[in-house]
C-alpha cells in the first residue's frame, strides 16, 4: 500500500476573489514506503503548495490525500497524529531555531509528542548521531554554530520525531558544494538507517540525479510527470523548456546524440558518463581501457 496518495488533488488560492489562482490542479500520485523522491518545478509551479498538503497544512479545495490508506481529512483524530508522522522541513530551517542549547532544540518536537524523558533522550541522541552532531555540540548554543551546522540541527529537530515521511524544501539552498554534499549524504543515510520515506524539493537537477529514485515534476500547477529518475532525464529537453536546469552532463549527451553518437541509456551523472564512454571505446577497439571503473 502506498504511504502517501493523492486523488484528484486541487487547491485554489483566494477562491471567489479577484486573486483566485489554481496552485495545484488535479494531481493524482502514489508514493511508496522507503523511497527517496525528488520534487522539481519552476517557481510558482505548485510544488510547495503540493507538499504542504502531505501533512495537512493545507486542505484540498477538492480531491483527497491519503496517509497509509486513511483519508487525512476524514475525521478529527487523524490530523494531529499526522503532523508527527509526516515531518516538514522548510527552506532555511535554521531561522526557526530558538532554544538555548542544541539538545533542547532537537528535543522540542519529541517533547510535544508526550514521550517520557528517557525516550526523548534516545530520540535526540540517535538523531544527533546520524547527523554527525557531537555530544559537545549538543550542550552549546545553536547560535554559536556555523551555517551548515545550524542547518543540520534544524533538520535533526524534525527527524527526532521519527516521522514516517520526511519532506525537505530546498535543504541545500545557500550552502557551499561540500555543505550540500554533506547534507544530502546525511539524508540518504537517514533514509537507509530508518527506512523513512524522503521527499526532497530542489532546483538542483545534479543533486536529484545523484539521490532521487523517482522524481515528481510540477509544471504550471499540474503534474507534468512522476517517473523513475532515468525516465525523467530522458525528457530533459522538455524540462529545459520549463525553465528548469538539466545537468551539464545531460546536455553534453543530448548534443552527442544529435551528431549520431547514441548511447543505449539515459546518462545524467558524471560517474555513469565515464562508465559508458569507456565501455563504448573498449567495445569499439576491443581493448579494456581501465580495469577498475
Amino acid at each position, binding site marked *: 500500500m502506498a504511504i502517501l496518495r493523492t486523488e484528484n488533488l486541487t487547491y485554489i488560492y483566494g477562491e471567489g476573489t479577484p486573486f483566485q489562482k489554481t496552485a495545484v490542479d488535479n494531481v493524482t500520485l502514489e508514493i511508496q514506503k522507503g523511497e527517496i523522491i525528488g520534487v522539481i518545478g*519552476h517557481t510558482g509551479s505548485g510544488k510547495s503548495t503540493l507538499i504542504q498538503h502531505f501533512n495537512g497544512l493545507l486542505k484540498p479545495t477538492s480531491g483527497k490525500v491519503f496517509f497509509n490508506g486513511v483519508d487525512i481529512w476524514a475525521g478529527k483524530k487523524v490530523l494531529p497524529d499526522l503532523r508527527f508522522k509526516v515531518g516538514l522541513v522548510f527552506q532555511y530551517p535554521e531561522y526557526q531555531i530558538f532554544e538555548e542549547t542544541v539538545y533542547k532544540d532537537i528535543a522540542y518536537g519529541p517533547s510535544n509528542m508526550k514521550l517520557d524523558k528517557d525516550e526523548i533522550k534516545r530520540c535526540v541522541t540517535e538523531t544527533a548521531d546520524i547527523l554527525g552532531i557531537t555530544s559537545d555540540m549538543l550542550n552549546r548554543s545553536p547560535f554559536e554554530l556555523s551555517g551548515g551546522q545550524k542547518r543540520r540541527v534544524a533538520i535533526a529537530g524534525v527527524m527526532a520525531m521519527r516521522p514516517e515521511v520526511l519532506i525537505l524544501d530546498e535543504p541545500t539552498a545557500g550552502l*557551499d558544494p*561540500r555543505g550540500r554534499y554533506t547534507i544530502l549524504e546525511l539524508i540518504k543515510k537517514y533514509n537507509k538507517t530508518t527506512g523513512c520515506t524522503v521527499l526532497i524539493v530542489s532546483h538542483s537537477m545534479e543533486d536529484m540525479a545523484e539521490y532521487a529514485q523517482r522524481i515528481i515534476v510540477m509544471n504550471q500547477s499540474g503534474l507534468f510527470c512522476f517517473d523513475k529518475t532515468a525516465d525523467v532525464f530522458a525528457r530533459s529537453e522538455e524540462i529545459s523548456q520549463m*525553465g528548469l536546469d538539466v545537468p551539464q552532463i545531460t546536455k*553534453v549527451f543530448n548534443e552527442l546524440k544529435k551528431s549520431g553518437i547514441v548511447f543505449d541509456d539515459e546518462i545524467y551523472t*558524471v560517474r555513469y558518463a565515464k562508465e559508458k*564512454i569507456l565501455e563504448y571505446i573498449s567495445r569499439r577497439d576491443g581493448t579494456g581501457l581501465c580495469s577498475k571503473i
Partner: protein
Amino acid sequence: MSDESIISAQELRFSYGSPDDGKIVLDEVLKGININIRSGEFVAVLGHNGSGKSTFAKHTNAILTPSSGKIYVIGIDTKDENRIFDIRQNVGMVFQNPDNQIVAAIVEEDVAFALENIGIPSDEMRKRVDEALKTVNMYEYREHSPHKLSGGQKQRITIAGIIAMRPKCIVLDEPTAMLDPAGRRDVIETIKMLNRQYGITVVLITHYMDEAAKTDRVIVMDSGTVILDDIPSQVFSNVELLKKIGLNVPQVTELVYELNKCGLNLDSHIITEEECVNALKTILKEE
C-alpha cells in the same frame, strides 16, 4: 580592459574584534591577501563558507576596513573616512537575499533610493531610473510593488538601484543563491551584459562553478588566503586541489579528468559543454 586599478588589496589582513576594543581576538579571517582588479574585468571569487571571500567583498566598499595592510578602491585608501562616499558611489554591492535589500513599496522608488541620498536633481533622477530599469529589463514593472515579484526579478531591481548611481564596479555576494534556475540565468545574463556592453567591472562571489566558468578570471580563496588566481580553464584544471578544499569543478571538467585518469588524453582545460562535446566527438567517432 584598461590598466586602471579598481580594487587593489595589498597584504590585506583582517580579524573580527581587535585587542583595542577589549574583545577577544578571533581567528584572522584574511591573512595578507594581494588582489588587483583592473577596470572592465569580470572576476569570480570562489571559496567554501568561511574562506574569507565575503569578508574580502565587504572591504571593497569600506563596510569593513583592514586590520593591517591596505586596500585601495578606485585609488582611494578605504581608511580615508572623508572619501567613503566616493568609494560607495563607485562600488555597489548586491547581497544574497533579495528581500533584505529592497526598501521602497514601488519598484521605481526603490531604484531611486540611492539617487535621492546622493542628491541627484529630479529630472536627472527620472532619466537614470528609467535607463537603469530598461537595462535590467524590468522597465515594465516600474510601478509594481516589489514584494510581488520573483526572487530573480527582485535581484534585478537591486542591480538597477546600483547601476543608476553609475558606479565603476559592482560586487555581488552570492546573488543567485536563493533563486530558481530561471532567475539565476536572468541575473547572470544581466551581470554579463553590464560588463560586456557598459564596461562595468564585476566581482561575482558564487558557489556555482558554472557561473564562475563564464567569467574572465577566477580567484579561489581558502582559509583567508588566495590559492589560485587565473583564467577559468586554468583554475578548474586543478580538480584535486579544488575538491580537497571543499569546492567543485564544472561537470564536464570532472568527466574529462576522470576519463584521463583511465588513460584517455583529453584537454584538461575543458570547462564548457561545447568544448566537451567536441572533444568527445573526436574520440568517439569511428576510426
